């Protein structure tokens, strides 16, 4: 054992960035998301953030955040189970539950933590977790931490999923895990059919609606509203840092599940509570969605169409998307770097 070996194996291959004289990662932003953004001193149009509804710099959201800081300060310096559970937090849990149409909700510092913390609480070695092949890293990492048997199914492939469910007997519980919107290509999961398969085989559905909440559905309430899924008995997670334009993550579902997580989800119990700024900001965004979603969604759809057409005209290979995402196929990593030229 040699301490130098430890640091030696942590090396990162940045050769391509060095050859190109440009690293697209960790760019320094000199502005917020209002209007054109400033990146390394250059004014640019933001097509990369997840600020779907453009509410991250909305004056009403900023004012709500400022008001919360004036009342509570910048942090409660405690976990929700101890000193971090302010009335704003409790009220937001209730609002989020109503928003997605589920019984109860917990709020974590990020959806990555929500997805990471969920599975080790609810699943173990006696269980099987069936997961979409293209599910997000946070779900995969969370699933692996549970020690359950894992069976990936082909992306959005109901036939393959049902085959696995048919053959999966003898487990304490089978979970089926997917995302509503797969963000790299904007594809939407056939979640209503997945829920029906889960009902047929008594499996527990788990959906990550990070790119659907605030975007999908006639009122922006997400995948359950979009696909008309009523009486959902499964588990729901979502990011509050995309269309909801703040930070944090949520887990929603039946009261028994959420109450259990309140005491046993270590990612919640041992993390400093979400700040008053974010709690108030999320509340303000939900209010705006409630009153203005129609108009914002029309603008979102219009902008996506315009950008899509412009990218095609510019000679880019753009993936046809079911969600407000325009994904450009670059080919190799080397080709990706040349996009900037």
């Amino acid at each position, binding site marked *: 054992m040699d301490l130098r070996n430890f640091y030696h194996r942590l090396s990162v291959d940045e050769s391509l960035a060095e050859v190109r004289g440009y690293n697209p990662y960790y760019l320094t932003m000199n502005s917020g998301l209002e209007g054109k953004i400033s990146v390394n001193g250059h004014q640019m149009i933001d097509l990369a953030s997840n600020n779907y509804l453009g509410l991250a710099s909305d004056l009403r959201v900023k004012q709500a955040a400022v008001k919360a800081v004036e009342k509570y300060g910048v942090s409660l310096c405690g976990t929700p189970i101890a000193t971090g559970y302010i009335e704003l937090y409790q009220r937001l849990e209730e609002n989020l539950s109503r928003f997605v149409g589920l019984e109860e909700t917990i709020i974590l510092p990020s959806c990555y933590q929500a997805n990471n913390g969920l599975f080790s609480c609810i699943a173990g070695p006696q269980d099987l977790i069936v*997961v979409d*092949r293209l599910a997000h890293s946070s779900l*995969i990492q969370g699933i692996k931490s549970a020690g359950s048997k*894992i*069976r990936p199914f*082909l992306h959005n492939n109901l036939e393959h999923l049902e*085959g696995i469910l048919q*053959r999966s007997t003898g487990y304490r519980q089978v979970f089926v895990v997917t995302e509503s919107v797969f963000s790299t290509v904007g594809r939407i999961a056939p979640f209503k059919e997945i829920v029906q398969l889960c009902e047929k085989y008594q499996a527990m559905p788990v959906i990550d609606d990070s790119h659907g909440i605030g975007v999908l559905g006639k009122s922006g309430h997400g995948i359950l509203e979009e696909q008309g899924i009523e009486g959902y008995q499964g588990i729901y997670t979502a990011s509050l840092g995309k269309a909801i334009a703040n930070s944090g993550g949520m887990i929603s579902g039946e009261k028994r599940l959420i109450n259990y997580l309140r005491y046993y989800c270590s990612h919640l119990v041992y993390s400093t509570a979400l700040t008053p700024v974010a709690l108030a900001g999320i509340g303000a965004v939900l209010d705006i969605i409630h009153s203005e979603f129609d108009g914002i969604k029309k603008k979102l759809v219009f902008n996506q169409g315009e950008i899509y057409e412009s990218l095609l005209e510019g000679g880019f290979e753009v993936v046809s998307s079911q969600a407000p995402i325009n994904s450009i196929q670059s080919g190799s990593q080397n080709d990706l770097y040349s996009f900037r030229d």
Partner: protein
Amino acid sequence: MIINLEDRIILIIQSVLDKRPEINLDSHLIEDLMVDSLDKLMILSALEDEFAITIAEDDFADVLTIKDIVGKLQEIV
């Protein structure tokens, strides 16, 4: 039509690895087929179903090529 074990295994692996180059016994899982940890799980699951066996992931931790998978399976099947 009767097919041999090697071809049967290749067919199974092809069914779960879409958009990959041609698969043969010498295909290297990572370098040629870009198989990641989830792909590997999907391959093992498909083989479990095909041969009605239970596979311990650890037994396949060191496989590098399709030929290695065939070898491991011949020990089990």
